[in-house]
């Protein structure tokens, strides 16, 4: 699609499962800046059943706050003429449950896993992985295929030139199940075949599935045991997502005609941004986007990008599932006041049934942030289990790597190597105090040694992700200036000791020559100030006590450079491997209150 020669204004929306967020970017002099944002409840559901309603409401709010016209009735004005309209409109979406897929491979830990990564990489939620060796009997697999009603199915399996028998077996199972798509009873389920590319294998798949499904055949995603080639499958998933799935979701047909670029699944767009940060700065990054229905985790370690979508972990639609999966005691352990179990259960369920409500008292906020810690912890656990030793798109790995991975299942995610942890999503981006976001991420991820923390200022990484595909410069400028808020770093030595025992001494040289010093004892947390400017660089020395390790061995000091940040340096002497909260309620509450005071987390003690 062609754009005006010079882009002056960009409007981008992200249609989340709960909220539709709109941002307005304008060119000011030579740079693009975020000027305002608006939001409104997403309207995929009855009584509206039209996603464009929520988009228009969010844009209406932007219009009001910016004080200039962008809508002409129910139409977004493009391109900008004078002071009216915008030059481009873009959108991402995870509403309507996102893209829900089932994937199948022959061997669970080989093609099954590769297929799963291809689907996750395309921004899908993987409902189930079916493989020849998944331990289920054929009729159980068929039943599962019939029950789940995915949006799409990815069938992989077999290396090129390998046996076709197993491929035929999987295709026959799928044909026997004759699964139906989730949306629109009248259309065929889209199936992507990315397995053994031999003509004989493809022909068998075509024979078995060609009449019953909307079949698309692409290159093998695992052509050799040591090679993974996910891109063709991912592209096919995106194509079918737009053609089949989105076209059947309420209102999307209309929305698709408004946008200058195809609508991108939200996790796909956020992933792009995370990958870009890691590449540009040459660092390891973990990112998390905690939404209403799902929590997406992204990581780049050893140059390998991985993304997982935890389908039923979120803060509104899925809040009750966080309780079901984490268990109530795990949520309650983060709450610094006694809570009645019956009441807490009711509160969580009331949030589930009215997902767009927000906490308006401090007590409710504390509970919401306790639930967020558990949702983040569980999503990260799932991510670690999936981000295992494969070397990504088109990169070779040796057969011995394959066996190593199979035996050890070693995750690529290594907290000791993590440079930057980025949080996005309502509960992190909109936390009333930034230190609350930092604290939630520290408790959920338990970073080790020195880790920088950042948040998406107002939850706009999805929109910038899709913008990066059409206007890299604008996306980068807004990302650096308006999106990424650098919070500071957390210093967490690995080790354990009795409360009050020495843990570490930290010394920081400020750009103005001032030297900050602090001692943190075991079981404590402390906050040291830093310049708020994220571009400031400071030299920091950490001297861990005997028994505590900062990465160089027990008791060995380290000197590193840290960036400025608006929260500061969080010294975490609570211990790692394991990290534990007191079992006794009174002691636990006393501890939580102490940490909240030390970091000035809430305006009053709870």
């Amino acid at each position, binding site marked *: 699609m062609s754009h005006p020669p010079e882009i002056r204004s960009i409007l981008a929306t992200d249609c989340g499962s709960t909220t539709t967020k709109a941002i307005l970017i304008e060119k000011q002099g030579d740079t693009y800046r975020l000027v305002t944002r608006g939001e409104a409840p997403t309207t995929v559901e009855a009584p509206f059943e039209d996603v464009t309603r929520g988009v228009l409401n969010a844009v*209406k709010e932007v219009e009001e706050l910016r004080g200039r016209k962008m809508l002409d009735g129910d139409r977004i004005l493009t391109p900008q003429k004078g002071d009216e309209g915008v030059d481009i409109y873009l959108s991402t979406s995870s509403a309507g449950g996102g893209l829900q897929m089932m994937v199948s491979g022959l061997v669970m830990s080989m093609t099954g896993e590769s297929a799963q990564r291809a689907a996750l990489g395309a921004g899908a939620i993987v409902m189930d992985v079916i493989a020849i060796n998944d331990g289920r009997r054929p009729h159980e697999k068929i039943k599962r295929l019939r029950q789940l009603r995915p949006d799409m199915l990815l069938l992989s399996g077999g290396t090129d030139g390998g046996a076709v028998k197993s491929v035929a077996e999987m295709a026959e199972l799928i044909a*026997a199940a004759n699964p139906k798509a989730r949306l629109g009873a009248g259309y065929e389920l889209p199936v992507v075949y990315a397995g053994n590319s031999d003509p004989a294998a493809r022909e068998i798949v075509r024979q078995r599935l060609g009449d019953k499904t909307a079949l698309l055949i692409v290159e093998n995603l695992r052509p050799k045991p040591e090679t993974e080639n996910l891109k063709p499958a991912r592209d096919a998933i995106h194509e079918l997502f737009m053609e089949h799935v989105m076209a059947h979701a309420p209102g999307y047909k209309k929305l698709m005609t408004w946008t200058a670029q195809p609508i991108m699944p939200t996790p796909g767009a956020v992933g792009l941004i995370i990958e870009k940060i890691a590449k540009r700065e040459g660092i390891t990054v973990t990112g998390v986007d905690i939404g209403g229905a799902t929590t997406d985790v992204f990581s780049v370690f050893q140059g390998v990008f991985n993304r997982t979508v935890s389908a*039923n972990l979120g803060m509104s639609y899925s809040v009750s599932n966080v309780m079901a999966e984490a268990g109530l005691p795990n949520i309650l352990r983060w709450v610094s006041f006694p809570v009645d179990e019956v009441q807490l259960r009711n509160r969580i369920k009331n949030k589930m*049934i009215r*997902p*767009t409500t*927000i906490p*308006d008292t401090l007590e409710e906020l504390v509970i919401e942030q306790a639930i967020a810690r558990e949702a983040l912890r569980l999503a990260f656990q799932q991510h670690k289990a999936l981000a295992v030793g494969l070397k990504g798109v088109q990169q070779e790995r040796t057969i011995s790597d394959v066996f190593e991975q199979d035996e050890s299942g070693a995750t690529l995610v290594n907290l000791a190597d993590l440079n930057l942890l980025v949080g996005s999503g309502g509960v992190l981006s909109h936390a009333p105090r930034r230190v609350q976001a930092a604290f939630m991420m520290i408790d959920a991820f338990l970073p080790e040694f020195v880790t920088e923390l950042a948040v998406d200022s107002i939850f706009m990484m999805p929109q910038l992700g899709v913008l990066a595909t059409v206007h890299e410069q604008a996306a980068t400028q807004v990302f650096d200036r308006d999106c990424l808020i650098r919070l500071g770093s957390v210093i967490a030595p690995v080790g354990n000791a009795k409360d009050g025992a020495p843990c570490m001494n930290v010394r920081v040289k400020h750009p103005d020559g001032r030297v900050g010093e602090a001692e943190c004892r075991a079981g404590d947390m402390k906050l040291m100030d830093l310049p708020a400017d994220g571009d400031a660089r400071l030299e920091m020395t950490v001297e861990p006590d005997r028994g505590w390790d900062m990465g160089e061995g027990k008791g060995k000091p380290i000197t590193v450079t840290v960036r400025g940040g608006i929260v500061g340096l969080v010294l975490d002497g609570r211990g790692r491997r394991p990290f534990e909260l007191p079992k006794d309620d009174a002691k636990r509450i006393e501890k939580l209150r102490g940490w909240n005071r030390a970091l000035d987390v809430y305006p009053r003690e709870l």
Partner: protein
Amino acid sequence: MAHAYTPGLRVTPQTLVRRERRLPLKGDVLVAVGDRVSATTVVARTLLPGNVQTMNLASALGVEPSDVAGKLTSPIGSIVAAGQVIAATKALFGLMKSEVKSPAAGTIESVSDVTGQLILREPPIPVEIDAFLEGTVVEVIAGEGVVIESPAAFIQGIFGIGGETHGTLVVAVSGPDDELTVDRLSPALEGQIVVGGSYVNHAVLKEAIRLGVRGVVVGGFDDRDLRDLLGYDLGVAITGHETLGITLVLTEGFGRIRMAERTFRLLKSLEGSQAAVSGATQIRAGVMRPEILVPRASSASDATGGGVTGMDIGSLLRCIRGDHFGRIGRITALPAQLQELGSESHARVLEAEIEGVGRVILPRANIELIEA
């Protein structure tokens, strides 16, 4: 801000309700446009393909997959009984025989010459769809189902469990504040839809199930009781498939919550009428709320579809979170700028006059509009 609104639940004495009744797979529609149907009239019928059984004949018979088809004793497409021999081989001049018997009754659907796998389809499962709503057939979706229309009182709940049911509405409490207790239940309520007030607990619900009550409509219910009733913690709010022997509809939410006066009054006015009730709830991807429908004689004065209007000064609202949960009020101001809440969050708010409380500031996200 005429454009921004928060969807509310519909509670209306008379509206024109349309309900689509669709088969899960194509089948036969049994009624025609213009037909009058009762709630229990079967409007469409189909046969769902039966379950599938698979068997690897190649390994069972010890032959190559490509030879399997020739070993079938019943050809593809034939109907076989459980235990019937469906394939056999002979060796050593017919002295050594291997046979494969059908594990179930069904039809031999296919045999693969690549894998040697046989697919046996069990007999089809008949599925019938009833009208649910007493009314008139206004549309036939060929081979799939119908649309039924009727003027009706329409009450949406916020959460429910259990599927579709019918019965006479009986109000078993004296007011919306009243709890439904065991002493309000009696064998006379068998087959009926019982309206409680603010709350019901697990023990009372169990007693209602024992008495054969078909549905219970109350303001609130404890999540702990829900877990005990279901036997598990409900993670994602997709309900309606439970087979508990009762349908439960909550009009307000979880906890002890006074039923909205307006809802209670309407249900009270409908006492003695036949109601169609569904507990099916899906709060994600095509929201579905539980509902109580009471078909009524047509009235020219109010037979529109209604709908949610915008959030405006004077709009009627209900608080759906926080200290004033469940209370009703009217919007008195809609400031455009964000304001700080008790949690220190900044959000768009509104000012409202709440019954029995006075003027308060509420986040816009924490109210729902009530149809005037």
